[in-house]
């Protein structure tokens, strides 16, 4: 049995060594030039924005769904759209902005619905990519529970780095590139592009359950924001009508849970159910026409909160 155990251990060790070398030794140039690579740019925007500012926090429903310049013009305040990708996870993208929040800021949290009832709350492969190749300091923000949920993605990510990368490293016309953002943090390259067919969210099975941890986290986040003298508004994400209808039961449950935890949306989620034709390439990414419509709705809703005098 001894030779068998030795061989198994040797092969396991070799595999671990390859994965570790890949994880820490091979740079992920494609990720650094993708929209995920814009995270340090957004940190810089937050640092330089001054205060009191409006900070939008969420996934790609924000990056691909807002024109912050108009919000800045309306409220006469600096605006930073930190939205990047839902795969970064609610827990991470909210925690990531906290150090930059100052007295008088208004934080508008706008997670995607999937953050409330899937493991996306803890983050997906995109977060692993951020932690190992874009912003290593971000690992400090992670709780043990979050590592536990991400840990099986780490070997997969290490192997994905061994693949031959064909992505153009510096493609300024790619809507998912680091350069696709304007000075406010909005992705804008797609505004002039033709929309493509979007894949709708599948209908709820009725078995989905709201993750109470995601709601509890929002309450915790709200307290952290308030402790800094800032205010938090939780905004429902924009969602394509067909997907919204398919997920209506789940969205209702999320809304009820939010109300129960005292962190209610500032408006009815159904208000942000927009026609499928206003979406660019996913059920969260808007075309320019959709962006204009959504931006106006957001401004009206923020106005109603009474936070702007």
């Amino acid at each position, binding site marked *: *049995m001894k030779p068998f155990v030795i061989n198994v251990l040797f*092969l396991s060790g*070799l595999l671990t060594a390859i994965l570790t070398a890949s994880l820490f030794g091979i740079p992920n140039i494609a990720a650094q030039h993708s929209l995920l690579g814009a995270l340090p740019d957004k940190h810089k925007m937050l640092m330089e924005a001054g205060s009191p500012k409006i900070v939008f926090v969420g996934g790609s429903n924000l990056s691909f769904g807002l024109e912050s310049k108009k919000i800045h013009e309306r409220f006469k305040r600096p605006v930073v759209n930190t939205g990047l990708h839902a795969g970064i996870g609610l827990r991470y993208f909210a925690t990531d902005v906290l150090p930059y929040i100052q007295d008088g800021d208004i934080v508008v949290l706008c997670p995607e619905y999937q953050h409330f009832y899937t493991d996306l709350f803890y983050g997906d492969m995109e977060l692993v990519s951020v932690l190992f190749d874009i912003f290593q300091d971000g690992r400090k923000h992670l709780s043990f529970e979050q590592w536990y949920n991400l840990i099986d993605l780490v070997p997969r990510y290490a192997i994905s780095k061994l693949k031959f990368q064909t992505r153009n490293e510096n493609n300024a016309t790619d809507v998912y590139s680091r350069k696709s953002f304007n000075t406010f943090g909005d992705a804008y390259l797609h505004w002039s592009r033709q929309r493509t067919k979007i894949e709708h969210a599948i209908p709820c099975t009725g078995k989905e359950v709201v993750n109470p941890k995601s709601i509890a986290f929002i309450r915790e986040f709200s307290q952290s924001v308030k402790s800094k003298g800032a205010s938090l508004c939780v905004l429902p994400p924009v969602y394509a009508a067909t997907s919204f209808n398919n997920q209506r039961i789940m969205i209702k449950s999320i809304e009820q849970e939010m109300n129960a935890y005292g962190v209610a949306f500032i408006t009815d989620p159904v208000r942000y159910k927009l026609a499928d034709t206003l979406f660019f390439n996913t059920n969260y990414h808007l075309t320019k026409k959709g962006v204009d419509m959504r931006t106006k709705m957001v401004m009206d809703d923020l106005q109603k909160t009474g936070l702007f005098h």
Partner: protein
Amino acid sequence: MWLIISIVINVGLLAYFKYYNFFAESLIKLMASVGIETHLQVLNIVLPIGISFYTFHGLSYVIDIYNKRIDPSENLVNYSLFVSFFPLLVAGPIERATHLLPQIEQPRIFRYEKAVDGMRQMLWGFFKKIVVADSCATYVNMTFDNPTNHSGSTLLFGAILFAFQIYGDFSGYSDIALGTARLFGFELLNNFTFPYFSRDIAEFWRRWHISLSSWFKDYVYFPLGGSRLGLLTSIRNTVIIFLISGFWHGANWTFVVWGLYHALLFLPLLLFNINHKHKDVVATGLFLPNLKEWLQIISTFFLVTIGWIFFRSSDLAGSFVYIKRIISQSLFTIPLLDHLKMPLAYISICIVVEWLHRDKIHGLQITRLKLQSVRWILYLLLVMVCIAQFRHNQEFIYFQF
């Protein structure tokens, strides 16, 4: 008397958990169709995982004792291990007391070659499940969930991919179970011997889910008289076996029709007495099959794939819609290519590897590779592909049975 009590308890539990709702709902519908309102309660219970498998383990034990093929086990631990041996608890293979109990009762000796080959078989099983089967799932779900939204060519590829999904899923699980058992010194019944290289349906059924087919043959077909009582009895028994086999998979008419369909494919071979024609390994000693064998293999695969449409569809109407849409002009259009290329690439690798090892127990019995370093590189590559392809929430299809 004790045999009957034992069979009634075992089959009764299976019927209660798995088939009660099916019969209740069918009866309600039948009565409603003749204008009679029936108030039968439908159960809201969870189906115990693997119930069909361990029920059959238990049945084989009592029947074999009754037939004096085996002595009753005097050791409760040994018997419990036989019924609940973890590698085969949830999805088989369906073991026989005559085969596994004597192995449990004997002291086990570690054998290096056996343990290494068990690991290889597990690795090949993981590859078939995680890489082949799970990569097919997206395309298959898309086509079977909404057949009316897709062209005939896309639906045809959906059906072909399902054929490989269910093969990769189930034979992958069996390889993992057999490999795990071998690692611990147990030899389980082989469940798959490269069924898609079969030249007719009879050969397919000698190579697909062998432990279930042989169980039905030994405990149902032969007690019913088998083929000893004339052709008509033989035909009746064959149809019964295929129907039960279909029904064993689930309480749905789709499985019953799937069983009946295979019975209809099998009967001509039985009638012309050519159901035992292909017992050898195809193209033995040759690199490729001849033209006749190619045609036989492809036509058998095609017939089996049609059967899988019934198996995979949620209801009979859906399966007929699926087949009807395949047989349309859109069959000659370009299929949807999203999520298709990688599954086809993995399927090709699987076919080539298994073809090269078609005379072996499993696809990774690499006796040809003499250099240890080359073998290790191959193992590492396979492990890495499995890790890269691993996805959450991809359960084994046969867990539901």
